[in-house]
């Protein structure tokens, strides 16, 4: 059955008649959250399940808004399919009448019609057509809303049902049944014949009573076994749920470890930004001090020079000769008397040479006398004033100390010149350390968000975990007990079967000793027994072969989706126990040990199995049905999404409709667009369901989804 069209009329955001067209193979529908994606699937499901309870909520607000009071319009969902070369249409609809303050909706009705190869149209009962177009048993496994709904395999009987629906084993069921029928019928015939023979009647009657009793007991035990198996199933489900929490808890523990490491890293970053203190301790307060220092230096120098000049003048007045003797050649400003020092002067005189300009100053020469006068003046100036007439002009010498201070500070200022670059470096260093911390904080936040996502996906929070862990241990206990119960039932059934076989053997012996007719009928019965065994054994074999093929194919697709990543191996176990066989799916690692996959691996595992089933049954099935998936890839990364779509695209002859919100993004004007990568995605058809702009979330009457072919 190929779904060709889905038409939504005035259903929620689909104002007016909106048509989705599909074809065989992979069909992609892109739609941003809230723009019609989920509504599409809901409308599609409504067509099939026809819920009457909330019809009003299905009505398009925009259509209602535009309708006048008293007027009516129709709300409908219809599909057109191609099945067995016939075009079949199904439409579920109801009428809406706008009243003053409310609406009146009619009951919904279902119309169906078929157009055959000759173009002849026949109207048929909608509900019957529905079941034949898309049987509910199949629908159950063909529509998936999101990743969670893929966990259909949590129920052990699901996979078996699926296999029985899709595989050739289905065909063999009839043979198995027929074999059983023939066998039983032949057995009855023998018994009837035997019954005529009074010789063995008493014994036969007793045997028959026993057989009846044993069979009854088996039925009882099998019913109990079945109930216990269900309890076991439920218990295992609960345990699995908690194990997934533990799995989550492990994931969360890992993340917590990472967060801890990041915090340690952060704490090891010390930012020293005590800038106010650095002003003093590092001398930063003197950054612009040079000017002041220069001012001071100049001031002191100027004053000092002035002082010396005055001193010279004074000395001139005080003692001309001496003063004259000390006048310099071009009336230049003389050096202070103390410069050069007494010791140096004495050494120069002793050596009879001016050691500054390297000129001879022989005793008695002009230079020699000059130096001598100078030395005498120096010696005299340091003597305390003896005479009263000897008046010193400058009794104080504060300027000298100030001069020293100026020298000292100027010398030290070399060190201080690196202050500006020091300040700059420090600020830059602190900035970069700060950025490191911000970066680490970002990483920590991301990890916290990861945690929230994981916890959000599971139904319990981090705290409830301990409570579940308590249950978990109790459940594990219960499970052990139930496992033992199951085993005891199985054992009991085996024992009763042994008794049954023993009685049957007795019966066979009697049958052997019967007359010709009995003998013949017995032969026939044995014959049919063999045929029944052949049929049943072949059915089981086909089933097991299918499972093996399924496993192989599923693993192929699994590796395709998860290209390059470690996947483990999918293993399907069939357990023939109780009244119905059960299937369990496990993921094995390299050591053949089962492990819990993460969400995206689990999802891709289920999709692989579903797709493998569909792929395998193309040859054997009379019919195939479309698969509808709503965004089953929220846990997938970009590459994995692409691989998945590629895999689905390559499954031959399977119509798959996938609804995505990925491949859509907003530009700088907040306008939605399809990202370039989508061009590379192989598909048979692509459509974009988007809300007409402008729209207002809070005003439903502005919502109108339009469908754009890509």
């Amino acid at each position, binding site marked *: 059955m190929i779904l060709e069209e889905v038409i939504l009329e005035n259903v929620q955001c689909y104002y007016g008649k909106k048509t989705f067209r599909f074809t065989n193979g992979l069909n992609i529908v892109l739609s941003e959250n809230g723009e019609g994606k989920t509504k599409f699937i809901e409308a599609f499901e409504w067509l099939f399940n026809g819920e009457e309870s909330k019809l009003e909520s299905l009505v398009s607000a925009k259509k209602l808004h535009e309708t006048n009071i008293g007027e009516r319009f129709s709300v409908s969902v219809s599909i057109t399919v191609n099945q067995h070369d016939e075009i079949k249409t199904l439409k579920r609809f109801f009428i809406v009448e706008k009243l003053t303050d409310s609406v009146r909706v009619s009951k919904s009705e279902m119309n169906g019609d078929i157009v055959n190869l000759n173009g002849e149209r026949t109207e048929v009962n909608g509900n019957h057509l529905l079941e034949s177009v898309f049987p509910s048993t199949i629908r159950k496994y063909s529509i998936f809303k999101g990743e969670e709904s893929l966990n259909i395999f949590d129920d052990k009987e699901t996979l078996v049902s699926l296999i029985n629906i899709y595989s050739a084993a289905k065909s063999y069921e009839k043979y198995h049944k027929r074999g059983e*029928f023939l066998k039983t019928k032949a057995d009855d015939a023998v018994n009837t014949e035997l019954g005529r023979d009074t010789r063995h009647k008493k014994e036969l009657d007793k045997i028959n009573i026993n057989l009846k009793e044993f069979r009854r007991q088996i039925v009882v035990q099998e019913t109990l076994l079945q109930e216990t198996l269900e309890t076991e199933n439920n218990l295992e489900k609960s345990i699995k749920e908690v194990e997934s929490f533990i799995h989550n808890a492990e994931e969360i523990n890992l993340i917590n470890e990472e967060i801890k490491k990041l915090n340690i890293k952060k704490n090891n970053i010390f930012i020293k930004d005590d800038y106010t203190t650095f002003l003093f301790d590092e001398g930063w307060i003197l950054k612009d001090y040079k000017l002041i220092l220069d001012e001071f230096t100049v001031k002191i120098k100027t004053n000092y020079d002035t002082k010396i000049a005055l001193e010279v003048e004074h000395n001139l007045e005080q003692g001309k000769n001496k003063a004259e003797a000390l006048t310099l050649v071009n009336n230049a400003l003389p050096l202070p008397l103390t410069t050069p020092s007494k010791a140096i002067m004495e050494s120069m005189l002793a050596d009879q040479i001016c050691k500054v300009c390297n000129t001879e100053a022989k005793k008695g020469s002009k230079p020699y006398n000059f130096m001598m006068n100078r030395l005498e003046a120096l010696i005299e100036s340091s003597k305390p004033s003896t005479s009263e007439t000897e008046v010193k002009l400058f009794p104080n010498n504060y300027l000298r100390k100030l001069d020293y201070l100026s020298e000292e500070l100027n010398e030290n200022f070399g060190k201080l010149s690196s202050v500006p670059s020091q300040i700059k470096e420090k600020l830059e260093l602190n900035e970069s350390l700060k950025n490191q911390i911000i970066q680490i904080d970002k990483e920590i936040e991301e990890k916290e968000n990861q945690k929230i996502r994981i916890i959000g996906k599971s139904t319990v929070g981090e705290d409830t975990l301990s409570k579940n862990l308590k249950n978990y241990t109790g459940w594990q206990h219960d499970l052990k007990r139930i496992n033992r119960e199951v085993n005891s039932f199985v054992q009991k059934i085996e024992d009763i079967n042994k008794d049954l076989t023993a009685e049957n053997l007795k019966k066979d012996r009697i049958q052997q000793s019967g007359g010709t007719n009995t003998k013949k009928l017995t032969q026939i019965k044995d*014959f049919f027994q063999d045929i029944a065994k052949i049929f049943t054994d072949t059915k089981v074999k086909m089933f097991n072969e299918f499972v093996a093929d399924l496993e192989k194919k599923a693993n192929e697709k699994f590796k395709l989706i998860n290209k390059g990543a470690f996947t483990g191996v999918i293993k399907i176990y069939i357990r023939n126990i109780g009244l119905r066989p059960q299937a369990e799916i496990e993921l094995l690692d390299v050591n053949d040990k089962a492990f819990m996959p993460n969400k995206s691996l689990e999802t891709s595992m289920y999709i692989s199995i579903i797709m493998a089933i569909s792929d395998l049954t193309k040859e054997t099935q009379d019919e195939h049905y479309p698969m509808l998936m709503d965004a089953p890839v929220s846990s997938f990364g970009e590459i994995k999404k692409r691989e998945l779509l590629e895999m689905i695209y390559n499954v031959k002859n399977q119509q798959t409709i996938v609804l995505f919100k990925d491949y859509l993004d907003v530009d700088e004007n907040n306008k939605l667009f399809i990202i370039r990568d989508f061009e590379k995605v192989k598909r048979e058809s692509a459509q974009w369901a988007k809300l007409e702009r402008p729209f207002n979330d809070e005003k439903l009457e502005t919502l109108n989804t339009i469908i754009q072919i890509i």
Partner: protein
Amino acid sequence: MAKKDEIFKSFMKHELLKEKYGIDRKNIPDTVREAKNSEVPIIKIIGEIVDTIDSNIEAGKKTEQQTYDLLTRYLSTVEL
């Protein structure tokens, strides 16, 4: 190859045929039509059953009871 032939062939693979009935591989026919003409009772019966269930023609299909009657009638006449 028709579906019923495929199904028939799958039954023929069962070891009972060789072990209990001593039938050689090469003596097993490929099609239901051939099987129905076989003189080996078990092959003929299985062929008939397949035909009653998966016949291409609606008329060929038979109920369980009809099948039983048809087969036992045949089986009564042959040496098993």
